[in-house]
């Protein structure tokens, strides 16, 4: 009887020993998004909404829209963890029938790995952040300013765009 019990316990434990129960919970702070706020170029203390803003990045020749026709004064966008730069297109007054004015900003940074836990593994934080506006014939953006050189959380504005 005792021997059978031992064998049964042994078999059930061997079978049960390989379960994955750890899932990265949603509340865990992982790789932060870049927080951008839009402000009035003529009156830098005041935020200024952008009408029908579309925010797009190009990944493997595909356009991915993070915002589409949204009127807002702040956005949160991801940076590419696979490279030291991410290019974004910011389109103002955009609509499906009449394309708006497109400005391009190149974000450059360095990536650092920070360990979180078993389920989430690592997050990236970004250092030496820069935001460079590409000059074209008709820029709707007047100026970009980096408020935080290090992007490690989503509590504060990292970049301010004046228009």
């Amino acid at each position, binding site marked *: 009887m*005792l*021997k059978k*019990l*031992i064998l049964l*316990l*042994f078999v059930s*434990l*061997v079978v049960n020993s*390989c379960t*994955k129960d*750890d899932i*990265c919970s*949603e509340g865990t702070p*992982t*790789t932060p*998004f870049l927080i951008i706020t839009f402000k009035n170029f003529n009156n830098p203390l005041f935020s200024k909404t952008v009408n029908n803003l579309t925010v797009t*990045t190009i*990944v*493997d020749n595909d356009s*991915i829209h*993070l915002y589409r026709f949204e009127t807002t004064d702040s956005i949160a966008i*991801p940076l*590419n*963890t*696979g490279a030291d730069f*991410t290019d974004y297109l910011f389109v103002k007054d955009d609509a499906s029938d009449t394309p708006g004015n497109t400005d391009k900003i190149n974000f450059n940074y360095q*990536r650092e*790995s*920070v*360990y*979180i*836990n*078993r*389920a*989430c*593994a*690592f*997050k*990236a934080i970004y250092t030496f952040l820069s935001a460079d506006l590409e000059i074209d014939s008709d820029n709707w953006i007047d100026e970009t300013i980096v408020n935080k050189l290090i992007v490690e959380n989503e509590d504060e504005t990292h970049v301010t765009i004046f228009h």
Partner: protein
Amino acid sequence: MKTKHTLLFFISLFVFSSFSTKAQEENEVVNDTVVKNNVYGLRLGIDLAKPTRTLVDDDFSGFEFMADYRITHRFFIALEVGNDKDEQIESNLVSSTKGSYIKIGGDFNAYNNWVGMNNSIILGLRYGFSTFDQELISYSYYTGDTTFPGFTTEEPIEYTDLSAHWAEIVFGVKTEVYKNLFLSFQLQLKYLITEEVPENFGNLYIPGFNRTYDFSDFGAGFSFGVSYLIPIYKK
């Protein structure tokens, strides 16, 4: 009336006689103990669960030796030493741990054996110590976002000279299947006391402690052993 009394007499005679024989039996048991039927000695064994896992699980290899020495009727000094190598494959990282451990403590046998039997139901305590190396084989950044393709590093990072201390409660059974040959099964509940954690990483597996958990200091384990008792004296 007379028959009733006679009946009572015989009933009481029967009851008393059965009591007295029982008392005699108990006396015999006591006598047998005096005749030195309890074997004291050193029991040496190996764990069969780890070699079995080594054969079936490509990510694991390990072994464990176990020993206990009887000091009183119910108390044993117990020791386990072993070596583990285990790969932790998670959704966002892969790491490998290898190292050795020692566990020292005592066992209390809660089982009342019949004469000549030598089985145990064990309640035990252990202090465990392990030294190990860890290798972070690959990892990716967790973003919670699918805009960009994920990024996975493939450059392994080595973390050496790590260590951990833990306490362990043991529940087990040992049964003598052949003269002086024992099969044992053990369940272990572990509590991590301190650990040397690598910088910017964690100990995902500790040899002897087994896998760790993100939000808990508890661990669990088991062993399935076969051991041989080297009799030294009888008491």
